[in-house]
Structure formats: C-alpha cells, structure tokens
C-alpha cells in the first residue's frame, strides 16, 4: 500500500487513472450496452456477411440489399436498407429466411446458417443502412422482469393476435400469428422492435425495454406454468374443449349405454 501511495504523486498517475477509468467504463459499456453485439462487428464480418448475402439472399433482396421487383412491379424481396441487424438475427435465426416458397406467410423452419454466419449477415445488413441492433442480453433477461405487469401489457397489446396463452391464432387471408411457446427471449425482443412480416412494430420509445422484458417474463411464466387442471386443451379456446366433450365424454357414455343395453353372453 505504501508503494501505491508513493506513486500516486507520480506525474503520470493522472494519466494512468484516466486510462484505467476509460478501460473500465468501456468494458462495462461493452458488457451492458444494448448494441454490444454490434460493437464486435469487424470489417471482416461485414465482408464475410456480404459474401453470404450475395449467395443466399441477393436473388430476392438484390445485390446491395435494395430489394427486387419483378416485371409487373410486384415486390419479390423487400429492401433491407435500414432493417438492421435485429431483423436479420430474427428472420435468419428462426429459420424464416431464406424463404423456401412464396406464400401468405413465411413459416418458421430449421435454421440453415450457423450462429457465426448469422452474425456476419447481420453485420453486413447493418452496414448498408443501420437500423435496430441485436439487443443485449440485459434487455431480455426475463428473470429480471415482472410477469404480472408483463401479463397486463401482453393482454392489451399482444393477446389479440397471439392468444391469451401465446398459442397464436389466425389472421386474414392465410396469415397467422405464430405460437410463442419455446421462442427464445432474444427473438421475442427482436420481433417487437422490428415487426417481422405482418406484425406491427412496438418501438422502445412507446413500449419501453422494461415493458418488453416484462412481456417476455410473462410468456416464459406461461410456458413453464403447469396445467393444474390436466391436459391443456383449453389453451387454444373453448372450441377444442367442446370437441373433447363430444369425443371423449359423449363417446364414453354412449359406449356405456350400449353395454347396458347389450344382451349378456349365453
């Protein structure tokens, strides 16, 4: 301790403290900043991403990611300028992109890119026009969230499409809101800030990051929650309960009636 207290008066001490302070702050920032992933994007990532993009995405989205229209002016693939890394991480990370076939909605499929490649693609798309970055893990750390508040927000803003238990539901003309069970928290967050496909955007200014974390906490609670009454058929609404009443209930009881009315073996 004495040596340190002696050197404290060293002319360079101020500089050292300053540098140390910057390193600590920078490190903390890197660890906690929402755009921490973006910070690590290097030029080589962008370059690698560009290569992947030109092979796997450019057919529909154009070489520069500026979108492609067919002869009739119909959009083949939308422009990706400004959609941001979060959109790429969501679309490619859930297997929705690359798209297999045109349809009312692009379904979730097996992911075909590695995490590394997705990061590179995201870096490239980010480089062509910015946009929402991939959120830092603090944003969606649902163990910090309040599921009660999240439930209230979810029921007002999300349940209309995704159903009260996050089971999804039908939209117009073949589109649908997907089931939210077993979706990873980062993808949930990204969906809310980017608004993939038909889904509207819930920007951080209006639905704060805390609100979003609460929603994720609620969904995880619903996911992990047992079904105290037994098989959870009612999670998708009373129509399925009616089917069970007819098939199992009336089925069994008519069976009993047939047994009662049948002649005994002779």
């Amino acid at each position, binding site marked *: 301790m004495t040596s340190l207290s002696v050197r404290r008066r060293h002319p360079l001490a101020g500089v050292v403290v300053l540098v140390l302070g910057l390193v600590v702050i920078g490190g903390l920032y890197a660890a906690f900043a929402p755009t921490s992933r973006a910070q690590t994007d290097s030029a080589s990532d962008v370059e690698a991403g560009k290569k992947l993009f030109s092979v796997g995405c450019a057919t529909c989205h154009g070489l520069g990611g500026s979108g492609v229209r067919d002869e009739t002016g119909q959009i083949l693939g939308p422009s990706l300028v400004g959609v941001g890394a979060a959109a790429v991480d969501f679309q490619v990370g859930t297997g929705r992109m690359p798209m297999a076939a045109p349809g009312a909605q692009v379904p979730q499929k097996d992911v075909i890119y590695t995490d590394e490649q997705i990061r590179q693609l995201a870096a490239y798309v980010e480089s062509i026009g910015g946009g929402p970055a991939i959120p830092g893990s603090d944003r969606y750390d649902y163990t910090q969230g309040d599921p009660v508040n999240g439930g209230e927000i979810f029921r007002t803003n999300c349940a209309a*499409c995704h159903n009260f238990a996050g089971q999804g539901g039908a939209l*117009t003309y073949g589109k649908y809101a997907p089931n939210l069970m077993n979706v990873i928290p980062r993808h949930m967050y990204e969906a809310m800030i980017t608004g993939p496909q*038909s889904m509207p955007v819930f920007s951080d*200014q209006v639905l704060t990051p805390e609100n979003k974390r609460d929603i994720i906490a609620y969904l995880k609670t619903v996911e992990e929650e047992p*079904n*105290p*009454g*037994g098989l959870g058929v009612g999670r998708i609404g009373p129509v399925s309960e009616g089917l069970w009443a007819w098939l199992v209930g009336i089925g069994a009881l008519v069976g009993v009636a047939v047994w009662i009315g049948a002649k*005994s073996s002779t």
Partner: protein
Amino acid sequence: MSDSPADEGREIEPADTSTLEPYEDPGLAPHAYRLTDTDPKAAKRAERQVAALFGLSALGTIGLIVAFVAFSPLDTINIGFTTTSASNFFLGLSLGVAMLGIGFAAIHWAKKLMPDVEIVHERHPLASSAEAKADALAQFEVGTDESGFGRRSLIRRSMIGALALLPLPAIVLLRDLGPLPGDDLTRTNWQQGMRLLTDPTLRPIKATELEIGQLVNGLPASFAEIPEAEGTQRQVARARDAIIVVRIAVDELQPPPKQADWGVAGILAYSKICTHAGCPISLYERTTHHLLCPCHQSTFQLNEGGRVIFGPAARPLPQLAIATDADGYLVAKLPHGFQEPVGPSFFERGGRS
C-alpha cells in the same frame, strides 16, 4: 280417405291397410339363457366381480380422503403428457374410481345376476272413454253455471280487466333496473386537445416515437384521472374510449376526403371497439393494413379510413382525428373527439356517417 261415417268429410285420414299385412306377429322369441343362468360357477364368478368392483369404489373413496389431506392445491405432479396439480389429479382420479366402481358393479350385477326374462305389460289407450269425457264436461258446465260466469257479464268483464292490468306493476317495479340511455351511447370521454395515452402503461405518446408499422393501444388522458378505486368507471371508460394508433407510410394512405387531414405524418387513430358487436380489435397487419376482429372476423382497411373489407361489420371503424400539441404529444384534434358514436350499432344512433 277413410270412409267411416264419423268423418263426414271434415277430417281426411290415411287409409286403413291392415288387410295387406304380409305376416302375423310370431310372438316373443324363445328366451335364451345366459351363462350365469346355466352355470353356477359363472354366477359365482360374476358375484365375486361385482363385490370386487364395490370394493374398488370403497378404495377410491378412501383415496380421495388421503389425496385431500396429502396435497395442497399448489403441489404439482408430472403425469406424462403434462405437469398438473397433484391435488386436482388425485382427487379427480379417486372420485372417478369411487363413482365408476359403483356404476360398473350395479350394472354388472343387473346384467349377469338379475333375471333377464322379459315381462310383457299391456298398454291402455290414453284417451278417456267417451263417457268420462262427457261427464267431465258436464261437471265443468255445472260449475260454470253455478258461478254464473257466463251470465253475469259485469263480473266477468271486471275480472278480466283486473287480471289484465296486473302485469303492469311487474313492469313498473322493474323500471329502476337501470337509467334511460339518453344520449349516453353517443358520447365518449374524448375531448378536443386531450392527449392520447398508452394502454395499460398510461404514458402520453409523442408523434416522433412512432415508427412506420407501429401499433399502439391507447386510452384518453381522462382515463388516468379516474381514481384507482373507481373500478366500474374505469371499465366503462375502457369499453367506449379505447383506441388503437398506427403509423402507416404516407404514400400508402388513401383516406376518404373528409378524413384527409385527421392524421399526423401517417399516424392514424381509430376506435378500438368493433362496429359489429363491440369486441375490442387490435389485430393489425402492418403490411396489408388490415385490422381483424377475433370475434367475428370483421376486417377494416386502416389506410383507407377504416372501411370494412370483410366480415359482418357494416360500418367503417370510427376514426379519431388527431394533431400534436405544443410539446409534440398526440392529442384529439376535433371537439368531442370522435365525430360519430363508437361501438356497435343501435336503433337511434343516427344516419350512416
């Protein structure tokens, strides 16, 4: 056409075809004896089965008591296809066994051991004899005569009048079930210059906070002023004031002329209450600008003034004209907010707007 003289052409009846019948009733089939009738061993076996089923039921009942004591309602158990409440599962299972045990036992007993020789009972025509009918009528006539109901018209009329009036008190007494609607259905709590708040977080909304494709579920600033304790007032306010706010790229807007300047930079606000049956709607698709009601699938086109493109709703979704205040927050632009009643149609709501 029956030719029986009683008809006299007043009633036509289907013809009698009994003479055409090809067969005579052969009578009851010979009785077939059950195994339990002929084989004492089988009967003994059935007896033991019935007793065992009653015993199973008793076990179920005891099981229910054990389950009641053993589990709290919050204990869980994995039953293979789901994790469930141990209390509910074991109570239900044991109650089911207790009930089904008795049920199976009683029916098995009846089928195997009680006689199954069929018994024949005669039916008798349900109509009384002509004599009895005539007698009943005669007695009724005596009573009518003695009361003078037919003769004393003053009594008859005054009685009918008194009885006819009697339902009135029932209607009058029910008058205070609720207030008269008046023009209540045509009003909301929206006022000119009132801020739009987010639902359920109740924060004012800045125009600059909304991105293209954004959806915000909203309420008027007046909602935040209702005290927490006034639950009913809050529910009523939600049922009529709720709105949705969306932001659509300006070049995709095709509003009707009247509503051309009701938005702010592509930000549009609509009533959240369906014009069909009153469900709140917020299934907004940002790509097609469809707003779908989950109750009956009425679909509204939000970039075209909320017109109906599918489903049973007959009127466009009422739009709330908005502007920004000095601080950049979204506010209702016109007096009384909405320019027409929100929610489902009612008889006196006024002409189509």
